C-alpha cells in the first residue's frame, strides 16, 4: 500500500475547459509527492447533506509544486460545489487512492474516452516508451492539445466534426495503430469493446482498464465498489475485486465486465 493522506488542499486555480468540464489545480501537503498516474483522490463536499467523498482521477502531478490537477465533469451537486471553488479556497481530500497504471517499457496505445481522458494525461506524460494516444469525444474537444507533446494523438468524435467519425476503436482501425500494450479509461461500453479487441485472437495484447463504481470509503473498507473478477480475489476470497484498492486499473483478462 502506498501511504495515504487526509489533507486540506488549497485551490491554486480553476478554469473551465469546456462548458461543464473544469480543470482545477490543488496544492497538497504530501499527496502529490507519492501520487502516480491512474490513481485518484477522494474530494469531500463542504455541504453537509452530501456525506460521501467524490472520487476524481489525477490528471497531472507537479511534484515540484506539490500540486495535483483534477479535470472533472460538472454532473451533479458535488462537482457543482467544486466548480465554485476559487484560488485560495480549501478542499478536504484523501489520496492518493488506488493502484495506478503499471508502467511497462513498451509501445503503448493510450486510450481515453470522454471524461476518461483526464487520467491518461499524466500517463502520457510519464510513460517512458513509444506511445500512440487515441482520444474519443462525443463532439467538442478538450485536453487534446496538451497530449500532443507526449505522442501521436488520434481523435475520434461521434459527430465526426474532428478526426475519425466514430469511436476510439474506429480511430485505431482507421489509423492502423498498433502497439504492445493498451491503457484505457472511459465509459463502460468503450472499455468493454476495448477489452474484446485487445483479447481477440488477432490482436492479443496486454490491456489495462481503469474502472469506475459507486464508492463510499475509497480505501477498501466498505466493500461497496466491486467488479467481478475471473479468479478468486485474495482479499475478498470471492470473485469480486475492490475497484478502489485492487484497482481502479485492472488487467482486462482479470475482470468480468
Amino acid at each position: 500500500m502506498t501511504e495515504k493522506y487526509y489533507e486540506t488542499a488549497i485551490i491554486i486555480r480553476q478554469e473551465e475547459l469546456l462548458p461543464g468540464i473544469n480543470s482545477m489545480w490543488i496544492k497538497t501537503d504530501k499527496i502529490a509527492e507519492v501520487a502516480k498516474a491512474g490513481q485518484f483522490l477522494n474530494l469531500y463536499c463542504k455541504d453537509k447533506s452530501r456525506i460521501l467523498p467524490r472520487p476524481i482521477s489525477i490528471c497531472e502531478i507537479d511534484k515540484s509544486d506539490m500540486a495535483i490537477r483534477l479535470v472533472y465533469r460538472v454532473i451533479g451537486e458535488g462537482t457543482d460545489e467544486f466548480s465554485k471553488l476559487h484560488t485560495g479556497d480549501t478542499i478536504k481530500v484523501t489520496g492518493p487512492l488506488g493502484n495506478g497504471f503499471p508502467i511497462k517499457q513498451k509501445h503503448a496505445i493510450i486510450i481515453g474516452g470522454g471524461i476518461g481522458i483526464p487520467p491518461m494525461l499524466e500517463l502520457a506524460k510519464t510513460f517512458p516508451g513509444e506511445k500512440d494516444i487515441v482520444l474519443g469525444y462525443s463532439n467538442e474537444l478538450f485536453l487534446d492539445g496538451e497530449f500532443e507533446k507526449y505522442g501521436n494523438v488520434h481523435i475520434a468524435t461521434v459527430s465526426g466534426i474532428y478526426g475519425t467519425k466514430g469511436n476510439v476503436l474506429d480511430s485505431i482501425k482507421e489509423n492502423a495503430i498498433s502497439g504492445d500494450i493498451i491503457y484505457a479509461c472511459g465509459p463502460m461500453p468503450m472499455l468493454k469493446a476495448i477489452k474484446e479487441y485487445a483479447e481477440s485472437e488477432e490482436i492479443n495484447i496486454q490491456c489495462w482498464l481503469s474502472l469506475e463504481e459507486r464508492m463510499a470509503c475509497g480505501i477498501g473498507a466498505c466493500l461497496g465498489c466491486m467488479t467481478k473478477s475471473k479468479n478468486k480475489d485474495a482479499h475478498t476470497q470471492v470473485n469480486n475485486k475492490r475497484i478502489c484498492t485492487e484497482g481502479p486499473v485492472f488487467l482486462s483478462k482479470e475482470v468480468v465486465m
Partner: protein
Amino acid sequence: MNTSVNIAGVTLNNPVMTASGTFGSGMEYSQFVDLSRLGAVVTKGVAIVPWEGNPVPRIAETASGMLNAIGLQNPGLDTFIERDIPFLQKYDTKIIVNVCGHTTKEYVTAVERLNEQPVDLLEINISCPNVKKGGITFGKDPKAVEKITSTLKEVSKIPLIMKLSPNCADISEMAKAAESGGADAISLINTLTGMKIDINKRTFALANKTGGLSGPAIKPVALRMVYEAAHSVNIPVIGMGGISSAEDAIEFILAGATAVSIGTANFMNPNVTIEVIEGIEKYLKENNINDISDIRGIVE
C-alpha cells in the same frame, strides 16, 4: 478523568468503537487512525464461509445519509482468523467480531469456531436488511430474537452483543427479548431499510432495489431507540446510527448508551473516531466530570 467503560466484563479504554462493515477489519483505516486509541474495533460481519454479496451498484448517497446493499460480502472465517485477528492483536484495543449467518446452524458454527480465538466480544448481526436469507429474518420478531440469543449463549464462551434492527414496531420489546435470551449487551441501530430511484434511467439506484440507510440522517431515530432500549433492559447498550461528532456521541451517552459505534462517518472523515474520542474528553473536562459513567443516561 476516567473514560473507560465496561461491557460484559471487558474494559474498553474509552466508549468509542467502530461500526461493523464500515471499517473493514481495521487494516485500511490504520493508515489514518492509530487503532490503539479506539475503545474497540468491530469487524465487518463474517460468516463461516466466504459470501459474494450483492451485485453493484451497492452504494447510493441520500440527503445527509447513504444507502448500502453490500449483502454481507465477507471472506469467511478461515481467512478472517488467519489474517484479520492477528492483525488486530497487534493493537492495544478490544476486538469485537461481528457474526452473520443464513441459518441458526451457521451462526452456531461460527460462534463455536470463534470460541477458540483471542477475541473480546462477539456482536451477532440479526438485523441486516440486505440479505434474503438470515440477517433480519432472525431480528424481526421478539420470539425469534430470544431464541437465537439463547441458542448462541449456550455455545458461546465469549460474551455476546446482540445487534438489533430498527425496522420494527417496538424496539424495547426487541431489547427485552435479547436480554431474556441471555445477551450480555445489545447494540443498535442497524440500518433502516430505504430505497432510491434514478428517474432518468428509471431504475433503482441499487442493484438490490433496497438498501440500508445510515449516516447523520438517521441519528434522531437511532437516539430515540437507544434511549428506549436503555430504559427497558439492564444490560449495556451500545448506541450507533449517524454519529459523526463528539456532540453526537455524547447525546447517545446521555440517553443511556454505555458505548458508541461510528460507522458512516468514517467515510465522511477518516479521522472521525479520534476526533470523537478527543471531543468527549474535552466535554468531560469542561464540565468537570470525572467519570464518563456519571453522565450515562442522565437525560431522562
